[in-house]
């Protein structure tokens, strides 16, 4: 692994223990670290809240497709900035636009093409990435797609913080105003429709929230790994709580722990931040589920194929 931090900054990063991570956070010369932490903590709120809906409504696959389509917008924005001279077209605006378009298209597909939903999701997923990569290939100068796919905290500045803060407030505000409606949509859409709820409209709105949320962490964990923080904290939280709102709080806290822990570890051992955060979350997730499965098996006697099949079925039903 190359010197992830040290090669790009001239700051001395050969820290020897974690306390230096906390000191570094206060260091005015390495602002990006503090910025990353602020963005990570803010975004965790939206990730915990929206992620809970994603998990209970089983739309992880659609959320993944939306996230990948974001690359098309980032590519288009960078191309416009450098080839066309549209300086105002920040990559995050491109990401936002692409995410919303993808959410809308995927929403329509899943509402109206029930039988072939998974195929359409896969196709849009690939189309979005292909568009993004072609734009990046034609963009003058070198752009590393890795920065956007897997995150690069070094490109975080003041502008990114304000965009993230605004989006975060927007997402949380919409959820607060519609908490019950989204809950009804996820729990029993047919009944919600019978009670006069416009199920299609709220489903599309929920997917738009997913789109906004994914964009929040595009610099920290990247679009490919964002899905880990959207689904894993909520999935773990779902095992621990009894109510949806509790699930949201616990998921947000877990997300914060993963972001801070991953950032600290990546700093301490000089590793790329996005993958470290995602892998940390993944390890905790695996451990929690192994423990839960063993406990259940212990209660029922020796593990049977039934238990394993039930677990797999519950986990893999994406949409």
């Amino acid at each position, binding site marked *: 692994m190359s010197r992830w931090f040290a090669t790009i900054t001239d700051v001395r990063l050969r820290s020897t223990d974690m306390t230096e991570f906390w000191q570094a956070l206060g260091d005015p010369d390495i602002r990006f670290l503090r910025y990353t932490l602020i963005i990570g903590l803010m975004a965790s709120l939206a990730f915990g809240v929206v992620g809970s809906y994603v998990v209970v409504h089983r739309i992880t696959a659609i959320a993944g497709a939306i996230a990948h389509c974001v690359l098309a917008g980032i590519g288009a924005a960078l191309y416009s900035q450098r080839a066309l001279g549209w300086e105002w077209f920040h990559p995050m605006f491109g990401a936002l636009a692409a995410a919303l378009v993808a959410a809308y298209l995927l929403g329509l597909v899943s509402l109206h093409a029930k039988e072939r939903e998974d195929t359409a999701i896969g196709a849009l997923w690939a189309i979005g990435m292909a568009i993004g990569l072609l734009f990046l290939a034609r963009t003058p100068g070198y752009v590393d797609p890795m920065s956007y796919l897997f995150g690069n905290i070094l490109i975080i500045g003041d502008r990114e913080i304000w965009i993230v803060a605004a989006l975060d407030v927007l997402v949380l505000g919409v959820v607060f105003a519609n908490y*019950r409606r989204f809950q009804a949509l996820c729990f029993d859409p047919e009944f919600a429709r*019978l009670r*006069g709820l416009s199920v299609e409209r709220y489903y599309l709105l929920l997917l738009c929230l997913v789109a906004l949320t994914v964009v929040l962490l595009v610099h920290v964990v990247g679009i490919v790994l964002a899905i880990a923080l959207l689904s894993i904290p909520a999935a773990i939280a779902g095992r621990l709580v009894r109510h949806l709102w*509790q699930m949201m709080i616990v998921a947000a806290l877990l997300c914060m722990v993963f972001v801070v822990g991953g950032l600290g570890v990546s700093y301490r051992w000089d590793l790329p931040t996005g993958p470290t955060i995602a892998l940390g979350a993944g390890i905790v997730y695996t451990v929690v589920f192994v423990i839960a499965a063993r406990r259940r098996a212990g209660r029922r006697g020796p593990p049977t194929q039934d238990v394993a099949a039930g677990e797999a079925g519950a986990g893999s039903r994406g949409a």
Partner: protein
Amino acid sequence: MDAQAAIAIDDLWFSYDRAPVLEAVTLRVDPRDSVCVVGPNGGGKTTLLKLILGLLEPDRGRVRVLGEPPIRARGRVGYVPQHMHFDPLFPISVLDVVLMGRIEQGGILRERRLRPAAMEALEEVGMAGRLRSVFSELSGGERQRVLIARALFGEPEILLLDEPTAMVDLAVESRLMRTLKGLHERMAIVLVSHDLGFVSKLVNSVICVNRRVAVHPTSEISGRMIEEMYGSDVAMVRHDHRCAVEEHRHD
């Protein structure tokens, strides 16, 4: 006439693809009536229910619910879906499920005012003590009662229940029936069921659905009719796909 009927269906035809699922259906359910819809799987029971709820549009014919097109009457209809259709991992409390019954009046801030009515609905089905419980941790019969409370919370004039007794044991069944008996003074009840045996005590007429529809007052349900519908053994109230139109001459 139609304005007075809870449900009035006139020469209705419906198909998903080509083959008709329902043919020339005409029936009428009066207010305060209790009817049971029976028929083999795939015979069109669920389709009929969805047409009454306005979730499907008929190819031909007309459905009127409380004198209105089904979609406009939805707010006055209480729907109780099958309890096994729910995600067992969904974290939601009994009270939250019941509050869904008036989702259209939504808003977290207005919720406090709705709570007493939600509690009343839970009391009516004998589940007031469990309002903080998690829905998925309840037994099948308890879940069914909570779903009934959710429908009652919307103050319906018609109650539609889809297979309320599927997967619940006999004691639970009779408990459910007592709950429904208390309600049929106030509203029309339409019950979809496999088991005619025990619902016949509750309902006034039986609607047999198997592509075509035949309606029988309960008084007409003789041993012979049940025999024809269910095979020879009346004690075994399993439906056995013999609910064909040809076998509905009971006069």
